[in-house]
Every structure is written in C-alpha cells, then in structure tokens.
C-alpha cells in the first residue's frame, strides 16, 4: 500500500514539474506581456498544486500544511496576475498588433 502511494506521489511530482516546465517554454514563446501572464498564472498554479499533492503523498504528515499552502496559492496567484495585467495595460505595455479586439481601450476616458 505504501509503495503504491509513493509511486502516485512521484508521478504527481513529475506531472507538476512538467507543467511548470511548459510554463517556462510558454513564457519564452508568447509574443506579449498579457499572453505571458496567462501562461505564467495557469501553469504555475496547477504545476505547484500537483507538486504539493505529490509531496503530500510522500510525506502524509505534512498534508495539512501543504493544503494550506495550496489554498493560499489559489487565492493569491490569480490576484497578483490581475494586478500585474492591469498595471501593464495602464502603463502602456506593448500589445500585439494582431490583437483581434480591444474593448478596454475602446472605452471613453483616458486610461493610460
């Protein structure tokens, strides 16, 4: 039984780091700030959650702390990305020329 849980834990760790790695690749490949923030937020959230779950399987006595770290992450990670995205928009970060629509910029009133 213990061996099976160890294997599941190891698999979760590998999967988590794989998502984190893809996040890194995405940061490199995406063309502008907003797309990079998107990749960064989603992959780090799931990647870290999976890594935490893996760690919980390998060290069951850490479970409670890991769960708290996970909850904290779920609340703070998207929030910081939103603040970053808003700050980037308002300070006039370079946007992709091929953006399909920009209904935020179309609004009356100067936001920059």
């Amino acid at each position, binding site marked *: 039984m213990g061996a099976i849980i160890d294997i599941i834990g190891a698999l979760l760790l590998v999967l988590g780091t794989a998502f984190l790695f893809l996040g890194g690749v995405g940061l490199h490949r995406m063309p502008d700030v907003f797309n990079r923030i*998107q990749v960064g937020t989603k992959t780090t959230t799931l*990647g870290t959650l999976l890594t935490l779950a893996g760690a919980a399987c390998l060290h069951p006595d850490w479970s409670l702390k890991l769960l708290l770290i996970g909850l904290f992450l*779920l609340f703070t990670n*998207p929030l910081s990305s939103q603040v970053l995205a808003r700050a980037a928009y308002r300070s006039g970060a370079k946007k992709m020329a*091929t953006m399909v629509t920009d209904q935020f910029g179309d609004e009356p009133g100067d936001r920059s």
Partner: protein
Amino acid sequence: MNSEVLSSTRQSVELFVTLFMFWVLLNGSLAPDTLAIGCVAAFVIAVLFRDGLSFLFEFRILPSSLWASVQYFVYFMKELIVANVRLAIIVLSPSLPIKPGIVKVRTRLKSRMGRLLLANSITLTPGTLTVELEDDWLYIHWVTVEAVDMEDATTLIVAGFERYLERMYG
C-alpha cells in the same frame, strides 16, 4: 452609523480568527510564545485591514450554498486542468495558434467577495485573464477570442462560475 461600526467590528473579528487559525495550523505547535506572536500579528493585521475581505464575509450559510460551494470547487478544478492542457497544446504547437484580444463582459453578482472569486476563477480558467473590474463590468484578456459580442462573451466566460457563486454569495 452604529450598524456600520458593528459590521466593521465583526469583520475584524472574523479576519483575526481566520489569520490566527492559519498561523496555528502552519506552525503545528501550541507553545505559548508561538501563540503570543501569532496573536499579536493577527491582531495588528485585523485592525489595519478591517475594511478588507474575509472568506466568511457575505457568505450565505445555507445548505444550498454549501452544496453550491462543493459544485463550484469541482467545476473550478476541472476548468483549471482544461486550461493547462489547452495552453500546453498552444505552447507546444510550432505555429503558436493564438488569437488574442480584450473583451468586455458583465456580471450579475453584487457582493464584493463574489466578484473577487469570479475574477480569480476567470483568471485561472481556459485562456482568460481578468485585466480590470469596474462596477458590473469585467475586462478580460482572451488568448483565443471566440466571441467579440458582449452577450456571447459573457455566456462563454462568466456564466459557468456565476451560477454557483450566485448561490454562495449573491
């Protein structure tokens, strides 16, 4: 005036209790000096941020809202996984098939906590990132724009979470 003070005090107490519980669980010890430090820190934060938000604030404690929370959590995890797989596919495609844009959507939620959770959920789900929250309007950056029209975009992005959050926070 009086009820305002009362609700502000209630919020402070809720924040204090939440922070203190968090501290004790993270430390995993009930030693007097650990508890004293946590107590002081939680008190200072609760006083400084008494107008802030806490999880319990505005939450409706009803069986139906608790059930909605469970459904919300399951739906959220599913969407988070879908978001990651989709982005992984985009990132690994040599042609990088993206079609980004910023769309405007509307929410029916009235409570602050409900709106915060909605904005957070949107950020963590397939291809969408909340850029700004203004009254009833959310501005969403979308990696692959599927609808430019406000009504259609609202249905695609907001409706899924809104139906649970509406029952949780109103």
